[in-house]
């Protein structure tokens, strides 16, 4: 029993506790919140965020950042939609093409960052604009609808009584978790984030590795974009804008350090649960979408402060002034 407790306690980190408290709170405030149907709902909503946040996690583990993911998701869904409707391409092929587009966006981010030595903010922010612009051009600024129903199964389908996206997220999560924990490339990711100069001196191909990780983040944004398309059943360039914000928030709130080298996809899964619960709960209670953004922003800052303990010197300074 004591052993069980000691195994569970470390899992009860800040974000886990906050999520549990929120679930309790929203259950009291809203009748429909604590129900199986709403749980399934939350899972479906969370799965898009989870996929894009996994990619973001890898980038942040390298002490980088990928601001392009929201726009790249939009580009993916618009490319896929146009291929299906205007090009009459099979949905699966169209989706693969869309994902490949996203991966290329990520690859470009990575190459510009690693080989030109630019701060990742620059290429990924630039890519945000380029991907958004390209998506608007492809769709002629319209909302595109009327897809084959096979696409919707990805999001709406059920398997063994559980929502289909849950299986996708679980499989991806397990693969990535093992990758980070048990492969040389996974260890190298932490090493580069922990100390890039030392990693290079230890014989790690730092630039190649970083490029691959940004390409992977683009790839994950692509998959998330397809799932988003399946959910909304409509493609619009600006619909996914904001996922860069939510994904960074999920990664950081979960406990992966913006300084790199610390964290992982398990932490991100918790961060995603927290943000998805918060969004869903606020919805159920009737808080509008814009106020939700305010809450998430505030939560992000508080979580980061509590992680980095940067609050301490601030308090100390105040005390010194009072004295």
């Amino acid at each position: 029993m004591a052993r069980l407790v000691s195994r569970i306690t470390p899992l009860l980190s800040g974000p886990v506790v906050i999520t549990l408290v929120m679930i309790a709170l929203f259950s009291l405030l809203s009748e429909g919140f604590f129900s199986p149907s709403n749980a399934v709902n939350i899972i479906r909503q969370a799965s898009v965020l989870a996929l894009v946040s996994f990619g973001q996690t890898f980038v942040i583990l390298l002490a980088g950042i990928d601001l392009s993911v929201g726009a790249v998701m939009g580009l993916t869904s618009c490319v896929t939609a146009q291929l299906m409707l205007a090009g009459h391409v099979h949905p699966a092929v169209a989706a693969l093409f869309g994902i490949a587009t996203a991966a290329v966006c990520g690859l470009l981010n990575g190459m510009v960052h690693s080989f030109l030595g630019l701060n990742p903010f620059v290429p990924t922010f630039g890519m945000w604009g380029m991907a958004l612009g390209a998506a608007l051009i492809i769709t002629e600024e319209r909302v595109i609808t009327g897809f084959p129903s096979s696409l919707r199964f990805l999001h709406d389908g059920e398997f063994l009584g559980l929502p289909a996206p849950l299986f996708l997220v679980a499989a991806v999560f397990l693969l990535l978790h093992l990758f980070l924990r048990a492969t040389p490339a996974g260890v190298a990711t932490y090493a580069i984030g922990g100390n890039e100069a030392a990693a290079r001196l230890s014989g790690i191909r730092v630039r190649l590795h970083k490029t691959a990780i940004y390409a992977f983040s683009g790839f994950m944004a692509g998959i998330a974009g397809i799932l988003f398309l399946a959910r909304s059943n409509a493609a619009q360039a600006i619909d996914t804008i904001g996922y860069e914000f939510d994904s960074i928030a999920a990664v950081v709130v979960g406990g992966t350090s913006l300084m790199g080298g610390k964290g992982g996809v398990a932490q991100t899964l918790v961060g995603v649960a927290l943000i998805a619960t918060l969004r869903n709960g606020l919805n159920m209670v009737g808080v509008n979408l814009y106020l939700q953004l305010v809450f998430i922003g505030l939560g992000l800052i508080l979580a980061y402060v509590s992680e980095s303990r940067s609050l301490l010197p601030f308090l100390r300074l105040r005390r010194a002034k009072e004295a």
Partner: protein
Amino acid sequence: MAEPLLKMEGVSKSFPGVTALSRVDFDLLPGEVHVLIGENGAGKSTLIKMLSGVYPCDEGRILLDGRQVAIGSVRAAQELGVATIYQEMNLIPELTVAQNILLGREPRKARGLLLDAGAARRQSAELLASLGQHIDPDAQVKALSVPQQQMVEVAKALSMAARIVVFDEPTDTLAEKETEALFRMIRLLKAKGIGIIYISHRLEEIQKIGDRVTVLRDGHLIGTLPVAEVRLDELIRMMVGREITDQFPRHRQPRGEVALEVKHLSVRGALHDVSLTVHRGEIVGLSGLVGSGRTALARVLFGVDRRDAGEIRLFGTPAAIDSPLAASKLGLAFLTEDRKALGLFQILPVSDNIILAAIQRLFPHLWIDARGERAAAQEYVARLRIQTPSLSQLVQFLSGGNQQKVVLAKWLATHAKLFILDEPTRGIDVGAKLEIHRLMDELVAQGTPIVMISSEMPEILGMSDRIYVMREGRMVGEFAHHEASQERILTCAVGG
């Protein structure tokens, strides 16, 4: 005799495990250049840092103009008129000369609401002119040469009404002509009655610029003498005069085949026509002052920096070393001087740190099994007696000696065939030092030669089979261990 500007009486400072300074007395007269010398680690910088408010002293007192003062912060030191000019300058490259000189104390106009750029320019130009300098106050600092930047630092010190100016190895980065200009400026400062503390490795400078000289060794005051009465060889003896105890367990090996051969290696601005040979069974010591090119050589050998000319042969074949990865594939290992910045992954566990460089050898199948990783790491933890509560302990929580052992373990795990060790025992306690020396002896006995850079004379003399001495990017001497002595090496290193 004039009243001393500064008196430090019986000052002491210790850090965990080391006494950096033990009851040292030091004083400075107005208009005097007092030179402070000693080997690396003798306590020079500690003394200066206490004076400039970086560290508090544990014991002893500091008097300015005969009054005891407490120097609690860098700012306090500045307000008391103590300015320190470090090697790494404290200027902001993007700002102009005038902005840097008057930073935080800019002249104002319009009741203090606006900056008075004209007045700032005038004041800066006046200060620089009083130092015999004609530097444009509107020039950006990053566009200035190193000696010009030094002048700006001094002007900044004068603008804060400094009465004591400390120069920390100011000529290390200067050419001869620039050194002359610096000395002229120092004489101008002397004429103003400012007291100058001058730290240098270059003994020949002492006679040119110094009035008195103080020698420190191992944190103790060895003596303070007027420069006019002191000879160079006497100073060297005062600096190094230390018994070599049995810290250096060496079993001399017969010299084997040539392992590493470097011919005519050059790197623009760092190395000039450097050649050396390392045999199996040897520890080759690289001696020389800080900045003499030892680390630059090591970095080129390991592929961190590119070479402009020259040849490297490893075990008889030409080695194309263009990256650390290529070097480690060829069987080289490089323990860097700065273990925190370049060696360790502070926020990763001990086990990851140990396996990182050897990951391809240990796990060729793209898969790390946790048990295999633990077993590999445990082997080195045991062999090097790394004291850690567990393999998953983060490296940042280990002591300096154990951290250094972790970096060594990282390279041992690669089964490297030649080790380059840059300051392998810097800043670690005597016990860990001895263990690392034992390990080096073992490695050599097993046929793995070592190139060791060290600024500690006893270590160089005690561990090396052969010693190369570098100065200003060149090889200037080679000694077999039986013909080497502290005096001969130091004389060679300072160019005496």
